[in-house]
């Protein structure tokens, strides 16, 4: 243990603790901006500087470790003046259009400006100007708001192991860019959106589709159907000041109805279809030893990653579409026929925790009879913005339930959004499909939790099935390398591009650095999802009655002709992105 003094408080912390952490433990707040715990600890912004007695210049509290007998002062007049000057400098090269910025109210730079009472900028001068990159369907880069904290770079490189972006140019001209300054659309970006989650300002955000949706809601001739992904309901409340991990399903449905959607359906129903198809596919491939291990395919960031970097291994991916795409296809065929609605007039909106879904929905193969399965994807954040735009007082809403018949879903589908959830849901169904016996214990604890790659062995009948779960593309890469090198000793793999799964997706409410440092956001959201499962009456996908009915009435058997037409897809190697 190390003894030190911070602002006259005696502090005892373990060796290797940073000054910032030690101060936090002593209840002393030091402002940070570029710091993102465990991801970006580089000391670039200089906001966290403190004075250490006997040391020349300032110490960088976010990186520098405590030393025995150290005497630290976190807010001397010198430190405060330097911090104020630094903040002044950062803002002097920032676009400052806060009123029209998507991050207004949730911006770490704005928070600091308020805290430091920045009323005027002393060092006005030239500003670096950049063209906004909005070419991709998912993500917008506006580097006029970039403060070069490099949290996005570190996330992309260190967490996701992609490295689509890095710093180019030097000095004042420095900026974050891509290979040859191409659009993110044209480089190895997977659209996972984790960079958005880590950006302290509005320099990175989703490509907004709110106005497309408003336009359709206004049009009386369009039948606007909305479906919401499993993870949205456990995070949306945060945008209205609620605790992290609050389940707001009922209020979310009320809000969607209040917004004027003709039908409010649950993507969880689509997830049950996915499990039905995926489990069937797995059982078949397992029996035939066909391209094992089979990996899940419900995550479009992961699919894009595989198409770019593992072209030779695409046969390992399940051919299943993702839940909202399956569900969109069913709405525009079965539901349209059944309710006598012209599918051309149906407009399917998916509310997703993800920005890659925006890209996924416009992939050429995601069409049925020339119609898109899904017409617009908005994120959890965009939905919150729509609710605010409509002046709906979310916190005061009464709970409502999803519209029937497509709002009925199982507990297995509910956990789709958390890492290990798809695997768990698939195993529940695969077990009963293979053995024909009832599964007694539904929880597969081994595939739950925050560990990057989880492996488990499941006994199904007389067979031992080895499975793996990877979340975060850095971990996905490790698994793919095993598969590529023929050393993967498992048969079924769940992959989610975002660390934590969809609950931590690139379209979810953004948590600032301080919150990420102190709260287990993923754990809280995951807990909420598991409790939905626990409270569900039906907890196995293959027992979903509406799904069974649709198979019977319309699709036929899982994995057969019609199912393939509607619910399956294919993959194309993206040669030009080969690294």
């Amino acid at each position, binding site marked *: 243990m190390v003894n030190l003094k911070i602002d006259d408080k005696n502090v005892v912390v373990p060796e290797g603790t940073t000054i910032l952490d030690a101060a936090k433990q002593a209840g002393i707040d030091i402002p940070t901006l570029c710091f993102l715990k465990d991801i970006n600890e580089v*000391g670039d*912004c200089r906001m966290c500087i403190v004075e250490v007695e006997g040391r020349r*210049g300032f110490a960088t509290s976010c*990186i520098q470790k405590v030393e025995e007998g150290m005497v630290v002062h976190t807010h001397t007049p010198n430190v405060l003046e330097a911090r104020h000057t630094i903040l002044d400098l950062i803002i002097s090269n920032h676009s400052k259009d806060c009123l029209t910025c998507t991050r207004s109210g949730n911006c770490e730079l704005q928070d600091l400006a308020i805290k430091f009472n920045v009323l005027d900028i*002393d060092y006005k*001068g*030239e500003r670096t100007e950049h063209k906004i990159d909005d070419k991709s369907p998912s993500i917008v880069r506006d580097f006029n708001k970039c403060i070069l904290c490099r949290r996005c770079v570190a996330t992309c490189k260190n967490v996701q192991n992609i490295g689509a972006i*890095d710093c180019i140019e030097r*000095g004042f001209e420095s900026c974050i860019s891509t290979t040859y300054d191409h659009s993110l659309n044209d480089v190895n970006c997977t659209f996972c959106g984790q960079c958005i989650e880590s950006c302290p300002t509005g320099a990175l955000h989703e490509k907004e589709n709110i106005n497309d949706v408003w336009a359709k809601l206004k049009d009386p001739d369009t039948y606007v159907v909305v479906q919401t992904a499993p993870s949205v309901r456990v995070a949306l409340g945060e945008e209205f000041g609620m605790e992290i991990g609050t389940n707001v399903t009922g209020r979310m449905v009320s809000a969607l109805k209040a917004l004027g959607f003709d039908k409010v359906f649950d993507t969880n129903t689509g997830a049950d279809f996915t499990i039905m198809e995926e489990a069937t596919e797995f059982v078949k491939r397992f029996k035939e030893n066909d391209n094992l291990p089979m990996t899940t395919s419900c995550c479009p960031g992961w699919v894009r990653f595989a198409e770019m970097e593992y072209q030779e291994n695409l046969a390992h991916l399940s051919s299943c579409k993702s839940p909202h795409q399956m569900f969109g296809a069913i709405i525009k065929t079965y539901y349209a026929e059944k309710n006598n609605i012209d599918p051309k007039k149906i407009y399917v909106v998916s509310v997703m925790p993800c920005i890659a879904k925006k890209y996924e929905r416009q992939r050429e193969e995601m069409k049925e009879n020339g119609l898109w399965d899904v017409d617009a994807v908005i994120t959890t954040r965009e939905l919150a913005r729509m609710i605010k735009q409509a002046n709906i007082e979310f916190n005061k809403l009464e709970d409502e339930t999803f519209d029937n018949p497509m709002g009925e879903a199982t507990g297995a589908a509910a956990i789709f959004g958390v890492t290990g959830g798809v695997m768990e849901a698939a195993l529940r169904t695969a077990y009963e499909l293979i053995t024909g016996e009832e599964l007694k214990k539904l929880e597969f604890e081994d595939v739950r939790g925050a560990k990057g790659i989880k492996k488990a062995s499941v006994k199904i009948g007389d067979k031992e099935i080895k499975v793996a779960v990877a979340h975060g593309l850095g971990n996905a890469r490790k698994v793919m390398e095993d598969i590529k090198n023929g050393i993967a000793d498992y048969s079924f793999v769940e992959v989610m591009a975002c660390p934590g799964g969809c609950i931590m997706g690139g379209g979810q409410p953004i948590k600032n650095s301080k919150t990420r440092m102190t709260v287990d956001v993923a754990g809280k959201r995951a807990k909420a999802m598991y409790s939905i499962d626990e409270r569900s009456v039906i907890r196995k996908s293959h027992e979903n009655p509406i799904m069974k009915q649709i198979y019977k009435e319309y699709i036929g058997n899982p994995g057969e002709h019609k199912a393939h037409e509607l619910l399956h897809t294919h993959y194309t190697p993206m040669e030009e992105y080969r690294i």
Partner: protein
Amino acid sequence: MKTIEELEKIRVEKRAELDLRKNTNADTREKHILVCNGTGCTSSKSPKILENFKRIIKEKGIENVRVIKTGCFGLCAKGPIVIIRPDDTFYAMVKPEDCEEIINSHIIEGKVVERLLCKDIDGTKVTRLDDLTFYKKQKRIALKNCGVINPEEIDEYIAFDGYKALAKVLTEMSKDEVIDVIDKSGLRGRGGAGFPTGKKWKLTKDAKGDKKYVVCNADEGDPGAFMDRSILEGDPHAVLEAMEIAGYAIGAEKGYIYVRAEYPIAVHRLQIAIDEARDYGILGENIFGTGFNFDIEIRLGAGAFVCGEETALLESIEGRRGQPRVKPPYPATSGLWGCPTLINNVETYANIAQIILNGSEWYSSIGTETSKGTKVFALGGNVNNVGLVEVPMGTTLREIVFDIGGGIPNGREFKAAQTGGPSGGCIPKEHLDTPIDYESLKEIGSMMGSGGLIVMDDTKCMVCLAKFYLEFTVSESCGKCTPCRIGTKRMLEILEKLCSGEGTEYDIYRLEKLAVNIKKASICGLGQSAPNPVISTLKYFREEFRQHAIEKECKTMECKALAKIEIDPDKCKACGLCQRNCPVNAIEGEGRDIRHINQDKCIKCTTCIRSCPFHAIG
């Protein structure tokens, strides 16, 4: 070759052969024509001179004359330089077509070519190098072999005690003894900050780690500085030998020389030296049969100034963008790939072998109380003898500028000298007699830096000077930390405002405040020292800043927007010359009228000032 005995044999034989290089009384009929092939002389066609000498000698069948390619002699302003040994004749500004005459007259007839002799400060022609004032006050340790040996021949280096120190260290000294000698010598880092070298070696030796590295920082980047380049070009083996000694002392087997790609000659000669040393078994495994292994690789820098900062240099060697790391940890404990790493500058290394051979007492007897030995300066700017000088620490600025440098050209006044490049500061007239060492320079607001020394006369505007250095820093900032990335840009903008006449007194206040905060809050040495040129000019020339801001005047007229050109009516003889030369017809008056300048039309081109025969315009 692997044994020390064989090395000694080469030394004895070669030394006898090269005796005439250092001994003007050498009893020999042989002559060596030394042609400087440093970068400066090379750009003035010295390789052609070398070629011509060789060709003519061959054509004429002259015997006992050898033509040698050497590194820099130092007096670059007078290049290309040719020296003939043993008589020590110094020929300046030689052209390729002069070779014939030198051979015919000097070599064949024994008559010195008067017209190619160098003029000393007092105007007299000097024949011998040692008689030039430029060389008289110098003491050469780091530059000992520069201009004496052929840097591309390892035997010539060996002849002048090369690799003798390495042999001594490997066979007679323990690691601690080596470090002790360096420590007691008082040698401090020549890269700028002056950290005690022995202490650095000890810290690296004591650091925990299975693998350690020795790095040579040859990323010399200060504008106007070329000390390290000249050492690498003139005596590359001295650096290799020192790195090996360091490797032995700290327990490393691998060394990297990080040198900028803009130094092609240095890189070329270093590579030759490394190859030769490997051939001789002086680099590689089991050196001199002692079991000590050491090898060196060159890493080329792409020319970013910040890569001279030790941690940015390490990042660059590791293959990443050249950006500094936050210190601590220092490279001594966590450097290349996280291993303890010793980083010294070229000039620091160039002293090592001499210290080992001559002892710490010898070295510490040179210099001042806290700064031992000599320092190489690249003398430039408004000074007669532009070039490379090596002087004992404690030599005054006046001696360097006025004795060695030969004073200010064109009869102008000394205004200030700038040391330490963009990280340093300027020294005004009142401090000319300050003995130069690390502490005294710091005390007067400048720093030793790597050794750039730029002299400025009274035509130089100090606000412009500060602006010049800020321009440099702004374009060389790596962009990593906020104060340096945006702060230096804002400082430059304020200076530009002052120079264009739009500045106010508040701008000076803002400038100063920003300077202080950038200094304190930046990550690395580059940012922490970037404001120094502003701080030191403000310290000594605040009045000049005030004139720019308040009186809207730049007395030196360097700031065109603030220059006020006027005709002194007392001196004007109404000759009309200025009027005829003015490109914009801004000068009014006819016949016998005293002329005056219409300020609205004047573009401050200063043509009139230069054309006035009576010095009436200013």
